[in-house]
């Protein structure tokens, strides 16, 4: 029942984005969807690791984080695709695409896990702040996100997921 309800919510959000050009509801539904996928993937990754059935290349945390990221990106692509949104194109809804920063002498880029219009989403196991170079980099990209949302597994505690607003500095 919950899955059906969530399905209707995200369908409505996609229609609002398409018809009215208002991406707010889709940003909300993307956050809800990603949070659910992150929580489940984290449980699955930790369970496999504890059972010795994942062979980490680096640390255990990096291994779990890597699988969580990949699971979420894949599921988000499937979900958007079902909604008729191409997440690999140049539209305002993208999954793991380059976002360029043309403000300097050299063209650079950052790659948020997802972007819905003017909000960037970053899936992470570690806490990140405005002081994290990656996050500052997101804000410096040409699409100038109003917010970066850090989405961490609910299992990590009360402050698992939070919003970092644009620092309002002039470029």
């Amino acid at each position, binding site marked *: 029942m919950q*899955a059906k309800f969530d399905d209707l919510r995200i369908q409505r959000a996609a229609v609002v984005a398409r018809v009215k050009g208002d991406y707010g509801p889709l940003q909300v539904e993307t956050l809800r969807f990603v949070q*659910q996928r992150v929580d489940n993937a984290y449980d699955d990754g930790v369970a496999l690791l504890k059972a010795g059935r*994942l062979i980490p290349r680096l640390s255990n945390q990096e291994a779990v984080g890597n*699988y969580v990221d*990949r699971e979420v990106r894949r599921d988000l692509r499937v979900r958007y*695709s*079902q909604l008729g949104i191409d997440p690999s194109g140049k539209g305002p809804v993208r999954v793991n695409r380059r976002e360029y920063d043309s403000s300097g002498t050299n063209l650079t880029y950052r790659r948020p896990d997802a972007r819905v219009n003017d909000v960037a989403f970053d899936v992470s196991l570690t806490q990140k702040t405005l002081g994290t170079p990656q996050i500052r980099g997101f804000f410096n990209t040409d699409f100038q996100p109003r917010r970066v949302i850090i989405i961490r597994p609910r299992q990590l505690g009360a402050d698992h997921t939070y919003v970092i607003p644009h620092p309002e500095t002039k470029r």
Partner: protein
Amino acid sequence: MTRPNPYFNPKPYIPASLSEINDQLGSMILHAPTFIDRTLVFPDRNIHSEFDTLVGGFDVVRKKLGEERYSLLIDLAARAKAFFAADQDDTNGKTDEGRVLLVEIEEVLRDARRSRVKAKLPDDDGDISGD
């Protein structure tokens, strides 16, 4: 009579790049051997749909892979699927053998990306990323 939903795209998602296939694999490694989505968000997901998606991705990037790697990947995927199919209860150890093959697929894809960077071949955005 129910009308088709005009806002639903019935075409299954197929990975469009080497990095998207890599993400697909990561998800498959987590959810072997049944690949069923217990949240029911993706109720049609199963071993057949997952391997169809994976192999569909290989087809999309076949030129980038080259025939030798492509054939190897098709073979690895078929063998992995057979292991998972033979261990749907995850009790006889074949799931772990299948997972080893999925990791082997990751290695082949990594090798393909390294080769593309070395040869300075552009991705779909015109950048040298290995994709």
